[in-house]
C-alpha cells in the first residue's frame, strides 16, 4: 500500500523530497559537530555532564527572591538568576508599556509642546545604544544619590540612597487566607461581569459593574482582616552605623540600585519603540472612523477609548510582542552593572567556577528560548482575543 503511494509523479511526494534532504543534511552537520566536540573535549580531558547542578555553589548572590546562600546548589543558583531575569523583565515590560502608550498618544497631540517633547524623547532614547543607557543610569544618575547617612527621606518610612532604595517590609500573619480572599474576589468579579453582560445583551439593562467589582475587591479582603485573624505590620528600615563613617540601613527591604538602573534603562529604551507602534496603530485607523464617531456626538476621549483604540490594538500588538521579547533578551546586559540575572549568576559565575561552558551555555540558551516562546504564546493568545470576531 505505502509503496504504491510513493510515486515520484505525485506532487506531494516531490515536495517532500527536498524537505527530507534538508533535514538529513542538517542532522548530519549536527552529528558531525557533536562527535567532533566530543573528541576534542576528550582529548583535552574535559568531561561532559549535568551532575554539577547538584554540587554546592559556594558563592553568594546580592539579591534573591527565594532563599539562597552559597551552601545551596548550582541548580538553585540557576533558579535565583532566572527569577531575577523574570523580575526585571516584568517590571521593564510594565513600565515600558505605560510610558510607550503615553508617549505614543502624546506624539499625536494637538498641543505643540507635548508632541515635540514626545518626539524628542523617542528620537533621543531609541538612538543611543542600550548598554550606554544602562551605564548612564547606573554610574551617572544613580551615583548622584546620597550616601546612606544623608539618604533622601520619605516620611521616615522609606529612604533612597546610593546603596539602594530601602522600603518597609510587609509582615503578614495568615497571609494564605488573605491570598485566598483575593482569588475569591477575582472569581466573584468574573461571575458578576458575565452576569452583567448577559443582562445587557438580553434585557438592555446597564449594571454599574465597575463600582461593584471595585467594592468586591476591597470588601472581601477587608473582611478577612476583621474576622479571620489576618493582620499586616510593617518593618521600617533604620539607619545603622558600621564604623565612624560607614552607614547602612537595617530592616525593611532593599531595592538594589542595579535593579532600579536596569529596569529604568530597559523601560525607557523599549518605551520609544512601543510609542512608535502605538502611533502607527492610531494613525492606521481610518479617518472616517473618527469622523463618524464625532458625528454621533462622542467626546475626544470617548473616540480614543471606544473607537480608535480597539481597532488600533490589532495593529499595535504584533510589533509590541517583538519589543517585549527584545526587552527580555536585552535584560541579559545586566551583567555589566552587577545585577544578578541568569547571565551574570549562571552563565557567568557558575560557568567560571565549574568550567562547564557547553552545558551551561546550552541551558541558558534554552531558558531564554523558553521565556521568549512563553511571551509569544501569551501575546498570540491576546492578539487572537483582540482580533475581529465574525458574528
Amino acid at each position, binding site marked *: 500500500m505505502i509503496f504504491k503511494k510513493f510515486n515520484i509523479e505525485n506532487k506531494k511526494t516531490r515536495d517532500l523530497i527536498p524537505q527530507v534532504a534538508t533535514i538529513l543534511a*542538517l542532522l548530519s*552537520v*549536527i552529528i558531525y*559537530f*557533536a562527535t*567532533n*566536540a566530543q*573528541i*576534542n*573535549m576528550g*582529548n*583535552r*580531558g*574535559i568531561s561532559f555532564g549535568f551532575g554539577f547542578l547538584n554540587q554546592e555553589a*559556594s*558563592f*553568594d*548572590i*546580592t539579591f534573591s527572591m527565594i532563599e539562597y546562600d*552559597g551552601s545551596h546548589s548550582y541548580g538553585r543558583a540557576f533558579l535565583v538568576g532566572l527569577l531575577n531575569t523574570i523580575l526585571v523583565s516584568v517590571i521593564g515590560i510594565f513600565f515600558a508599556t505605560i510610558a510607550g502608550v503615553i508617549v505614543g498618544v502624546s506624539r499625536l497631540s494637538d498641543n505643540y509642546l507635548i508632541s515635540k517633547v514626545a518626539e524628542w524623547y523617542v528620537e533621543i532614547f531609541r538612538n543611543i545604544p542600550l548598554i550606554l543607557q544602562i551605564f548612564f543610569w547606573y*554610574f551617572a544618575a544613580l*551615583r548622584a544619590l546620597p*550616601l546612606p547617612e544623608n539618604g533622601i527621606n520619605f516620611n521616615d518610612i522609606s529612604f533612597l540612597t*546610593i*546603596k539602594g532604595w530601602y522600603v518597609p517590609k510587609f509582615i503578614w500573619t495568615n497571609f494564605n487566607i488573605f491570598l485566598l480572599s483575593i482569588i475569591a474576589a477575582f472569581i466573584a468579579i468574573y461571575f458578576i461581569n458575565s452576569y452583567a453582560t448577559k443582562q445587557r445583551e438580553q434585557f438592555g439593562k446597564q449594571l454599574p459593574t465597575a463600582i461593584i467589582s471595585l467594592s468586591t475587591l476591597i470588601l472581601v479582603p477587608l473582611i478577612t482582616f476583621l474576622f479571620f485573624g489576618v493582620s499586616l505590620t510593617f518593618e521600617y528600615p533604620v539607619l*545603622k552605623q*558600621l*564604623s*565612624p*563613617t*560607614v552607614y*547602612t*540601613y*537595617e530592616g525593611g527591604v532593599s531595592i538594589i*540600585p*542595579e535593579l532600579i538602573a536596569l529596569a529604568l534603562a530597559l523601560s525607557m529604551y523599549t518605551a520609544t519603540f512601543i510609542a512608535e507602534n502605538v502611533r502607527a496603530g492610531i494613525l492606521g485607523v481610518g479617518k472616517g472612523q473618527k469622523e463618524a464617531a464625532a458625528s454621533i456626538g462622542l467626546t475626544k476621549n470617548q473616540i480614543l477609548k471606544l473607537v480608535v483604540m480597539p481597532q488600533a490594538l490589532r495593529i499595535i500588538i504584533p510589533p509590541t510582542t517583538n519589543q517585549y521579547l527584545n526587552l527580555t533578551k536585552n535584560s541579559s546586559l545586566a*551583567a*555589566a*552593572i*552587577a545585577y*544578578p540575572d541568569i547571565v*551574570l549568576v549562571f552563565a*557567568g*559565575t557558575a*560557568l*567560571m*567556577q*565549574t*568550567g*562547564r*561552558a*557547553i552545558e551551561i*551555555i*546550552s541551558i541558558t*540558551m*534554552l531558558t531564554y*528560548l523558553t521565556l521568549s*516562546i512563553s511571551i509569544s504564546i501569551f501575546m498570540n493568545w491576546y492578539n487572537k482575543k483582540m482580533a475581529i470576531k465574525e458574528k
Partner: protein
Amino acid sequence: MKSIKTWILVGFASLLLVACGQGGGGAGSKKSKTLDNTKKAGFVKCGVSQGLPGFSNADASGNWSGIDVDVCRAVAAAVLGDADKVKYTPLSAKERFTALTSGEIDVLSRNTTWTLSRDADIGLTFVGVNFYDGQGFMVRKNSGINSVNDFKDGISACTNTGTTTELNMRDFFNSKNIKYEPIAFEKADEVVQAYDAGRCDTYTTDKSGLAAQRTKMSNPDEHKVLPETISKEPLGPVVRQGDSVWEDIVRWSLNTMIEAEEYGVNSSNASSLKDSDNPAIKRLVGAEGELGAAFGLDNDWSLRIIEQVGNYGESYKKHIADTGILPNRGPNELWTKGGILYVPPAR
C-alpha cells in the same frame, strides 16, 4: 510547534559550532603540535588581562607590559628568537579558560590562581607561579576600619565575578559570622568605579590587584589596604592539558627567568658570562649542555630569554616595584633572600 523545534535544532547546531570551531591542538605525542603551529604562525598566542597595571597593561599606543606579559615574551624569545613576536588577547576572567581550551590562545598569563579544581577538572595545566599573592580588602581611610575585625553585619563588598575572590569572600565572612552584601561585577574597571562612588564599603581582590587598582581611583590617597590576607593566591601561567612539550617550554621559560636572578645573570651581563667558571651559569647562557634539545629548541633559548626579557628580578623591578604598586617583594623574593621563590635546577 514546528518553529520551536527548528529553533532548538538551530540553537544546538550553532552551539556545537562554537564548541569545536577550533581544530584539535595537542594529543600528547612526542612532537608538539602547539610548538609547530606557533613556529608556523610566527608568533605566540598569549592571553592577558584587560588591563591590570604591573601584570599586563597596554599603554596608549597598544604596547603590552607587565610581569605576566614577560612570561609570554620569554616563551616567544625561546621559541621564535624574538620576544616581541607575541599576539596578545585581552580576556575577561570569564573568557580566559574557554579561550585557552578552545585554542584561541596557547599560553594564559593573566594573574590566574592555581587551584586544584582548575588544574584537574577543566582541561588546564598550571606550569608554575610567577607571583605569590593573597586576597585582601581595601577601605576608605576615613572609614575608621583598621582591620577585618572591624567589619560588621550589613557591610557591602564589591568584587569580580568568576574569580576565586568571590569564593574566598564567602568563606571569610561566613567564618566570621558576618552578614554581608556581595556585589560582583564582570570587569575590574566597573568594580573600581562602583567602589569609588560609594556603592560598596570595601573592595576585595588579590592584594597586588588592590594596589594596582588603587592607582586608578579618583583620589588614591583616600584608600588603604587592610593588613590581613585571607587566602593563598599563587598566580601563574596556564597551558592546555595534553601537550607536555609545550607545557615544559612555558614552565622552563618562567623558571629560567627566576634561576637567572638566583645566579646573578641579567640582560646586560648574560652574553659575557659564556665563559663563566660556574657550570650552572654556563648552562643558563647556553655554553654548556644540550638542554634546549629536550624540547626541540636550540641551545641559546635561555640566553635569548635573559637578554631580551631579563631575569625575574629585573622584570619585577621594572613593572611592579618602580611603578609604586608593591615596592616590597615580600614572598616574591628569592628563597636565598627570605622569600619563597624556588625553582628546580635547570640541568
